[in-house]
C-alpha cells in the first residue's frame, strides 16, 4: 500500500511535463518576499564597531534574558489557559460550554498592545484598583503587595491572555479528532479522567499543542507594542533602539539575526511537530464524543476557569475600552476618525486580497509542481510571519530606497528625467511589508483548503469528463470558498492590528487606527485611544467567529 500512495504523490493530479515558467515565477516571487529578511541577514557581515561591544557589555544580556523570560512566561501561560480550556470544552460538559467553545477565541481579536494599555489603566499603582485598595485599607506605597503590571511578568500575562487561543484552537481540534476509543481504553485500564488526560490525551495532542505554542511564541518574539509600552527591553525594542537611537544598522541587523535564530528554532519545532501529527490520527471515522458530565462543584469549577480566562482576556479590557470611549475620551466620532477607519479598512482589504492572490498562486504552483525547489521557495516566502514588523520595515526601506535612487540616477543620466522616489514612502512599500509579514497566514489557510481537495477528486472529475477549468469551477471554487474567506479575514485583521511596520512605512497624510491608538497611548492618553482601539477589536471579532465556525465544519468534511 505504501508505495502505491507514494506513486500517487510523485505523480499528482495534473500530469504535465515540467513547466519551467511556473517554477521560475514561484522562485522569483518567493525571493522577493524573502528580500527584507535577506537584507537584514546581509548586514551580519558588516562590522558593527564598538557599539556591539557596548551592547554586549551592558544591555544585551537584558535583551536575551527578558526575551527568554517572556517566552517562558508566555509558554506556561498559553499552555495552562489554552490546553485547559480546550480539554474542558471538548471533553467535558458543563453549563455554558457551547458558548465558551467559540467565545474563548475572542481574545484573538484583542491586539496585545491594546490589552496592555487597558490593564495598565486598571492595575497601575495609580489606577482605580490600587487606589481603591489604598483608600479602603489606608495603606500607602510599599505597605501592601500588588503585582507590578509593567514588568516582564506583566507582559507575559498580557501576551498569554491574547495568544492562548492559538493553543486552544489547535489543541481542541486535536482532542476532537482523537479516537474516543483510545481514551476509553485508558478508562478501562483503571485510569481516572485526570490520569487519562495526562497519560493519553495530552501526549496524543502534543504535536498540536507544540504547533500552537510555537505560533504563540513567534508572536511573542515579534511583539513590539506591548514590551515597548511596558519598558521591557527585549530583542525587538533593542533592535529599534540600536538601529534608530544608536544609529548603528550593522549592530541592529546582528541583533535581528540573533532574533531570527530564535524564530528559526521555533519554526523547526513547529514543522517537526506537524510532521508527527500526521501519524497521530488514529481514527478516520466520525465518532460522537461522550463528554464527561461535570456537575455540582466540578461544573462550577470548569465554568469559572473558562469564564475567568474569557473575562481577563476579553470582557474586562473590552469593557474598559468601552467605558473610556463613553466617558473620558476627548476624541469623538468626527469625519477625521471616519477617514482613519476608511484608511485602515482600505489598507487591510487591499493587503488581504493581494495576500490571497499570491497564496493561491503559490498554493497551486506547489500542488502542480511538487518539486523540492518550489516547495522550499514557498516555505521561504512564508518565513516572514515569524519576523517582527520592525525588522521587516527596515528590510523594506533599504532596498526600496536603493532601487528608487538607482532608477532615478539612471533615468536622469540617460534621459535627463529624474524620477524621484517611485516606491519609497508609498502605499506600495507598506503593502509589500504586509505581504512579507502575513503571506504565510493566507498561504497556510489556502494550502489547508487545497489539501482537502485530494488528487483523487481532480482525477474523478477528469474521468467523468471535466476539463481543468470545469474542475476549478465545479470542484475547487466551491470547496475552497470557506478557506479563501478565512484567509482573507485573517490577513485583514492582522493588518488592521499591525503596528510597527505601519508606523515606519506609511506615506504622507495617512494614518490608521492602530497608529492612532498607539500615538495616543504612547502620549499617555489611554482614554483617548479607546475609540481607535475599540474599532480594531470590533473588526477583529468577526473573523474570529467565522474561524470557530469553519473549524466545526471542517471537522465534518475531514471525515468523509
Amino acid at each position, binding site marked *: 500500500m505504501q508505495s502505491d500512495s507514494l506513486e500517487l504523490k510523485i505523480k499528482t493530479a495534473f500530469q504535465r511535463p515540467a513547466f519551467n515558467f511556473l517554477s521560475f515565477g514561484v522562485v522569483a516571487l518567493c525571493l522577493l518576499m524573502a528580500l527584507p529578511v535577506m537584507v537584514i541577514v546581509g548586514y551580519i557581515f558588516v562590522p558593527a564597531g564598538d557599539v556591539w561591544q557596548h551592547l554586549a557589555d551592558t544591555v544585551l544580556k537584558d535583551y536575551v534574558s527578558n526575551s527568554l523570560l517572556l517566552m517562558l512566561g508566555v509558554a506556561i501561560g498559553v499552555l495552562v489557559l489554552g490546553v485547559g480550556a480546550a480539554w474542558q470544552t471538548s471533553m467535558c460538559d458543563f453549563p455554558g460550554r457551547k458558548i465558551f467553545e467559540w467565545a474563548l477565541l475572542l481574545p484573538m481579536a484583542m491586539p496585545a498592545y491594546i490589552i496592555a494599555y487597558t490593564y495598565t489603566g486598571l492595575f*497601575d499603582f*495609580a489606577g482605580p484598583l490600587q487606589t481603591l485598595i489604598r483608600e479602603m485599607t489606608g495603606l*500607602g506605597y510599599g505597605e501592601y503587595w500588588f503585582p507590578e503590571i509593567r514588568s516582564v511578568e506583566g507582559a507575559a500575562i498580557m501576551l498569554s491572555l491574547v495568544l492562548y487561543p492559538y493553543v486552544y484552537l489547535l489543541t481542541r481540534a486535536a482532542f476532537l479528532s482523537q479516537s474516543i476509543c483510545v481514551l476509553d481504553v485508558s478508562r478501562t485500564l483503571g485510569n481516572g479522567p485526570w490520569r487519562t488526560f495526562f497519560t493519553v490525551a495530552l501526549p496524543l495532542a502534543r504535536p498540536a499543542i507544540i504547533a500552537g505554542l510555537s505560533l504563540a511564541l513567534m508572536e511573542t518574539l515579534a511583539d513590539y507594542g506591548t514590551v515597548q509600552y511596558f519598558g521591557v527591553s527585549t530583542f525587538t525594542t533593542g533592535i529599534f533602539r540600536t538601529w534608530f537611537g544608536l544609529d548603528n544598522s550593522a549592530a541592529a541587523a546582528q541583533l535581528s539575526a540573533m532574533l531570527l535564530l530564535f524564530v528559526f528554532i521555533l519554526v523547526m519545532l513547529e514543522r517537526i511537530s506537524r510532521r508527527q501529527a500526521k501519524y497521530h490520527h488514529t481514527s478516520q471515522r466520525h465518532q460522537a464524543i461522550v463528554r464527561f458530565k461535570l456537575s455540582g462543584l466540578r461544573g462550577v469549577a470548569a465554568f469559572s476557569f473558562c469564564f475567568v480566562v474569557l473575562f481577563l482576556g476579553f470582557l474586562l479590557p473590552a469593557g474598559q475600552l468601552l467605558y473610556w470611549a463613553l466617558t473620558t475620551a476627548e476624541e469623538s466620532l468626527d469625519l477625521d476618525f471616519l477617514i482613519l477607519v476608511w484608511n485602515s479598512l482600505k489598507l487591510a482589504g487591499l493587503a488581504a486580497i493581494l495576500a490571497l492572490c499570491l497564496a493561491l498562486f503559490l498554493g497551486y504552483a506547489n500542488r502542480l509542481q511538487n518539486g523540492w525547489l518550489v516547495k522550499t521557495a514557498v516555505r521561504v516566502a512564508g518565513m516572514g510571519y515569524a519576523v517582527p514588523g520592525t525588522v521587516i520595515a527596515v528590510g523594506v526601506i533599504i532596498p526600496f530606497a536603493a532601487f528608487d*535612487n538607482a532608477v*532615478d540616477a539612471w533615468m536622469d543620466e540617460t534621459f535627463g*528625467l529624474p*524620477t524621484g*522616489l517611485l516606491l519609497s*514612502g508609498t502605499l506600495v512599500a507598506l503593502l509589500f511589508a504586509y505581504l512579507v509579514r502575513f503571506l504565510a497566514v493566507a498561504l497556510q489557510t489556502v494550502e489547508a483548503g487545497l489539501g482537502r481537495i485530494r488528487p483523487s477528486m481532480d482525477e474523478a472529475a477528469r474521468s467523468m469528463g471535466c476539463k481543468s477549468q470545469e474542475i476549478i469551477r465545479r470542484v475547487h471554487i466551491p470547496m475552497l470558498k470557506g478557506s479563501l474567506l478565512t484567509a482573507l479575514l485573517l490577513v485583514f485583521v492582522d493588518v488592521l492590528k499591525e503596528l510597527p511596520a505601519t508606523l515606519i512605512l506609511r506615506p*504622507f497624510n495617512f494614518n490608521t487606527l492602530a497608529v492612532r491608538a498607539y500615538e495616543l497611548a504612547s502620549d499617555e492618553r489611554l482614554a483617548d485611544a479607546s475609540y481607535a482601539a475599540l474599532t480594531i477589536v470590533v473588526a477583529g471579532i468577526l473573523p474570529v467567529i467565522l474561524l470557530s465556525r469553519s473549524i466545526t465544519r471542517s471537522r465534518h468534511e475531514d471525515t468523509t
Partner: protein
Amino acid sequence: MRVKFNWVAVAVVSLVGLTAAQSAVAADEVNLYSARKEKLIKPLLDRFTHTTGIKVNLVTGKADVLLKRLQMEGKNSPADLLITTDAGRLHRAKAAGVTQGFKSSLLESEIPASFRDSEGHWYGLTLRSRPILYVKGRVNPAELSTYEALADPKWRGRICIRSSSNIYNQSLVASMVASSDVAKTEMWVAGLVKNFARPPKGGDRDQIKAAAAGQCDIAIANTYYLAGMLTSKDAGQRAAAEKMAVFWPNQNGRGAHVNVSGIALTKAAKNRANAIKLAEYLIGEAAQKWYAEKNGEYPVRAGVAQSSVLEHWGKFKMDSLNLSRLGELNPDAVKLMDRAGWK
C-alpha cells in the same frame, strides 16, 4: 531588439507620466516629517493651509525613524521639513547631512541664539522644561536645590523617573555632561539610580501619578504633562496633578534644563519657499499661543502670553547651553546611563 526598445519606451513614458503627475501636485504644497504626534500638529497645519492656501502633507513617526527614512531616501526624499520634539535629534539630523542651513530674519530675531543652530540648520519652536516635581506636603521645597543634589542618599527610594531610552532623560543627562564631564555625570547617575523608588517604567504622566499616589515623593517630568493632567477631563488625573508642585532647579547656577521642539529644512527640500513660510508661521504669535494653551509648552518667542497654568508656575532661569550640545553628547549620555544601570 524592437521589442526591447518598445519596453524601454513604455517604461520611460509611464515613469515620466508619474513624475509629471507628482510635480503637478507639488505646485503648492509642503511635505513634513513630524515627530510631533498628529494631534499636536495637525490643527496648526490646517490653519496654515487655511491662511496661505499651501497644502501640508504630513507623516508622523518616531524622530529616529523619520531621520533614518530621510537618510535612506537621500536626495530624492519628498520631505521638505523635519520636526522633532527635542534638540538632540535635530542635531543628529544635521550631523547626518540631511538638513540644510537657511536664513530667515524673522526666525533669527524671534528665537534666542541658544535655541537655534548657528548655521540655521534648525530652529526651536517651543520650549519644554524638565524641572523637579514634588508632592506638596511631603517634600519641603527648601530641601531641593539642583539636579545634582538628587543623587544625595537622603532621597533613597523617593524618586520616580522614566526609562533611559527616553530622549528627554538622555538630553537631561547630556546637559549635565556638558556642565561637567562624563565621569562625574556617571557617578551622579549611579547615585540617582540608587534613589529610584521603582525600576523606571511608563511615561512622564505615570511618574506624576505614582508620586501623587504615594509611591515616591519626587518625579522628574516635562511640565506640559503636568499641565495636560491639570486640564484633563479625567477627575483622577486632575486630582493627581493637583498634589504636585513645580520646583525649578539650578536657579543659582546654569538654570533649569530645557529642550526644544524644533524644525529643520531638509537637504532634499523641493518646496523651499513654502517650507520656510511654514516654519515662520509656526513661530508666529498665533501658533506659539496655541502650543502654550493646548499643550502647556513654553513659547520660544518672547512676549507671547502664557497659559494661566504656566503663569502659575512662575518665571524661571533656563539653562543657556546651546542645544546642539545635547545632540553631540547624546551617545555619551546613552552609554553612561547603560553603564550606570539606568534601565
